C-alpha cells in the first residue's frame, strides 16, 4: 500500500522522532511511505480560536498538498489533527463560502486515518510484538486524548496495541478520560483553569508509578510533559508510535528517571 504521511506541524517541528517512528512501523509492514512536500498544518489552532479567515489558507494548503500525489491512504500520528481534517476542514470551507474546497476537503478527509485506526482497522495489526517486533521494557501508563476518544471513537485501539508490545507493563491511569487541560489556546487564555486540570492529570499519572505516560497526540503530550518537567518529576511522555517502533536491537531511548521492568537501569 502507498501511504501518505501527514506528519502534523507539531510533530514535524518539535517531535520528529514520532514521525520517523511512524515511517519505520509502516515500512516494517512492507508499505511505501511518501511525504507530500506541500503539507504544513491542519489549521486546528486557528479554527478552535475562532480565526476562520486565517484558517482558510491553511486548510486549502492541506487539501492541495494531499491531492498532488497518488496514494492509497493518508495517515497522521494524531487523533486531534485527523479529526480536524475530517470534521473541521469541510466546515471551514463551507463557512467561508467555498463549496468547491468543501467537496475536495471531504474527499481528502475520507482517506485520512489516525495511526492506530490505520494499523488496526486497515492493516490488521493486533500483536505489535509479533507483527512489528515491538519491544519496550518499561512501566508505562496511557492517556487517551479527547479528540481521538470522542471525535474519532478510537476506543482502546492505541492501548491494545501498547499492551501487545513485548516487555511492557501498562498501569491503568485513574480518571483517564478526563481532559489534560491543553485545549490549544485555552491553555493560555484560561491558564489558571488549564493548570488546575493539568495538576490533577499529572498527579494521577505520578500515582501509577509509571516511568512514562504514553499517548497518541503530541500536543497533549507536550502539555502533560511540560507540567511534569516543571514539577521536577522524573516521569516523561512518549508517543505510542515510538513505543511500537522500539525493538530489542534498537530500543527507544527514554529520558528521565526510568527503571527497566527487567530490573536493569536504562541509562
Amino acid at each position, binding site marked *: 500500500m502507498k501511504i501518505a504521511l501527514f506528519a502534523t*506541524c507539531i*510533530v*514535524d*517541528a518539535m*517531535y*520528529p*522522532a514520532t*514521525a*520517523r*517512528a*511512524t*515511517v*519505520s*512501523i509502516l*515500512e516494517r509492514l512492507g508499505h511505501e511511505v511518501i*511525504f507530500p512536500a506541500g503539507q*504544513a498544518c491542519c489549521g486546528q489552532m*486557528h479554527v478552535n*480560536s*475562532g*480565526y*476562520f479567515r*486565517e*484558517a482558510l*489558507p*491553511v486548510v486549502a*494548503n492541506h487539501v492541495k498538498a494531499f491531492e498532488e500525489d497518488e496514494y492509497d491512504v493518508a495517515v497522521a500520528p494524531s487523533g486531534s489533527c485527523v479529526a480536524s481534517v475530517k470534521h473541521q476542514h469541510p466546515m471551514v470551507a463551507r*463557512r467561508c463560502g467555498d463549496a468547491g474546497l468543501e467537496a475536495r476537503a471531504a474527499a481528502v478527509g475520507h482517506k485520512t486515518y489516525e495511526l492506530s485506526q490505520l494499523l488496526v482497522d486497515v492493516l490488521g495489526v493486533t500483536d505489535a510484538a509479533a507483527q512489528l517486533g515491538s519491544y519496550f521494557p518499561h512501566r508505562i501508563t496511557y492517556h487517551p486524548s*479527547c*479528540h481521538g476518544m470522542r*471525535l474519532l471513537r478510537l476506543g482502546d485501539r492505541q492501548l491494545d496495541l501498547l499492551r501487545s508490545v513485548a516487555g511492557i507493563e501498562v498501569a491503568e491511569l485513574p480518571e483517564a478520560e*478526563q*481532559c489534560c487541560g*491543553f*485545549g490549544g*489556546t*485555552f*491553555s*493560555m*487564555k*484560561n*491558564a489558571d*483553569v488549564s*493548570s488546575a*486540570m*493539568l*495538576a490533577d492529570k499529572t498527579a494521577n499519572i505520578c500515582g501509577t508509578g509509571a516511568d512514562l505516560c504514553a499517548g497518541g497526540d503530541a500536543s497533549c503530550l*507536550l*502539555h502533560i*510533559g*511540560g*507540567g511534569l*518537567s*516543571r514539577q521536577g518529576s522524573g516521569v516523561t511522555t512518549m508517543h505510542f508510535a*515510538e513505543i511500537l517502533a*522500539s*525493538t530489542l536491537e*534498537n*530500543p527507544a*531511548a527514554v529520558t528521565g528517571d526510568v527503571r527497566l521492568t527487567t530490573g536493569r537501569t536504562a541509562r
Partner: protein
Amino acid sequence: MSGTFLGMPSLPVFGIGNLHEHEPFPKAARRELGNTQLRANLGHATRTIRDKRLAVVSELPDWEELREAGRAIKESVMARLPELLEQFEANFTARGGTIHWARDAGEANAIVASLIREQGADEVVKVKSMATQEIGLNEYLEEQGIAAFETDLAELIVQLDHDKPSHILVPAIHKNRSQVRDIFLREMEGVDPELTNEPARLAAAARAHLRRKFLSAKVAVSGANFALADSGTLAVVESEGNGRMCLTLPETLITVMGVEKLLPAWEDLEVFMQLLPRSSTGERMNPYTSLWTGVTPDDGPQNVHLVLLDNGRSAALADEMGRSALHCIRCSACMNVCPVYERTGGHAYGSTYPGPIGAILSPLLTGITAEENNSLPYASSLCGACYDACPVKINIPDILVHLRGEDVDSKRGKRGKRGRERLPSQMDLGMKAASWALSSGKNLGLVEKALPLGRIAAGPDKKITKLPGIAAGWTQSRDIPAPPAQSFRQWWDKEHRAPAAPTDPTGTGDAGTGNAGTGSAGTEENP
C-alpha cells in the same frame, strides 16, 4: 391573550437579566479556583452524579436512539415554533388559562408583578425555576414590595444566604451542612436555636418553615419543564414535592416559561421523561411529575396564567449554527462532566446558566457582543465530554467554536475609543503570522530553520521555562522542551535526496543513544 399588544419588535431582541458575566471568565475563574470548599464540594458532587448517571444510562439498550429521538423532536419544534405556540395558546386558553407574551425580562417581570397585585397579595411561593432566575424576578418583586419565597430546599438555602445558585440542579452545591445550619440560624424565622447540622434536623427545620408559607400564600410562581401543544398542558418535574404544594394549594398560579420548552404532543413526553431524570439526578424516574391543563373547576388553582418568554430566544433561533442550544432541557449533565465547571463552579459563568451549556446559551441569548459574555465561548478545552453526555445531542463544542468565530469577526476593523481603529491584539497578530507560516510547506520549512535558536534559548537544561506576553500563560505551570536539531521535514529531505542511502536513519549522529534505527530520534533530538 393579554390585552397588551406589543407590536412588531425590531429584530434581533436580545436577552436581558441574569445572563451576563460581570467580569471576563478567566478573572472570575481565577477567584473561584481559590475557593477550596467549593472545589472539594464540586469535585465530590459532580463525581457522584456522573457515576449515577452512567449507571442508569447504561441500563437502557436504546439510550442512543432515545437521544436521537430527543434531538429530532426538539429540532422539529424549533422548525415550526410559531405554529406550535399558537396551537398551545389556543388549547391553554380554551381550558381556562390566560397567556401573556413577554418580549424580554422587563416585560415578563412587569406582567408577573401586575398579576400578583391584582390578587392583593404581597408574597408568593415559588417552584424552582430557571426562567424566573434568568429574568431576575425575585429581585424585581422585592423592589415592588412583594416577597418571593423559594420552596426548593437548595434554592431556599441560597436565597436565605442572599447568595446565587452555582449549579442549575443542585443550587447549593457550594455549601456544606454546617454552613447551611448557620444560614438557617441566622435567617429563618422562628427556627430552633439548638439546631444541629444533622441532615434530618435541617430538613425538618426547612419543612416547618415552608409549611407555613404553603398554607398562607395566595399566589404561586413556577417555571415549566415542558408544554404540550396538542393539549395545552404544562409540566413540572421535581424531586421534593414542594413544587407540587405550590402548584396545587394557592388560588392563583403564574408560570413563566421560555418559548423553546414546547413539545408537539403528549407522546413526546415518553422520550423526555426517560431522558431527563437519568441525565439530571441519575434516577430512573423523578419522584414528582405535575401536569396541569388550564383550570380544573374546584380543584387546584382557579386563576391560571402563563407568561411566554422570548428574552433573546428568537435571536438564538435565527443563528443557524447556534439554534440547537435551544434544545436544552436543563438537565445539567454537561456541567457534571465538564472539567472546567468541576473546577470553577457556576459563579464563574456569571449567568443563570453555567457550565458548557451556559457558555453557549448566554452569549446566544444576549448576543456575542454583549459586555464580557464574549469570554464565555473560550471557557472550554473543547474536550467534548458535554456533547457525549447531552441527552438531546447539542453539539456544544462546535457551537463554542462557531461563537469564537463570531467574536473574532465582530472585533475585526472595529473602532475603539476616539474613533481610532482598534489595534490588533497579540492573539490577532500571532494568528496572522501563524496563518502565513502554516499555509505552505515551504513557509513552514523556512520557520523550522530557526529551530536551533530555540535550542539556544532552552540552554543547558534543554527546556524553556519563561515566555513573554500571552505565552506566559503557558509557562506559568509548564515548560517547553528544547526543539530538535532538525525537523522531520529536514530529515526526510536529506534521506530522500540521496536515493543510494537506505532509509535507515542510523546516520544521524546520535546512534549512541540507541534507538535511531527504529526511526525514533535519540535524546539529542527529543529531550
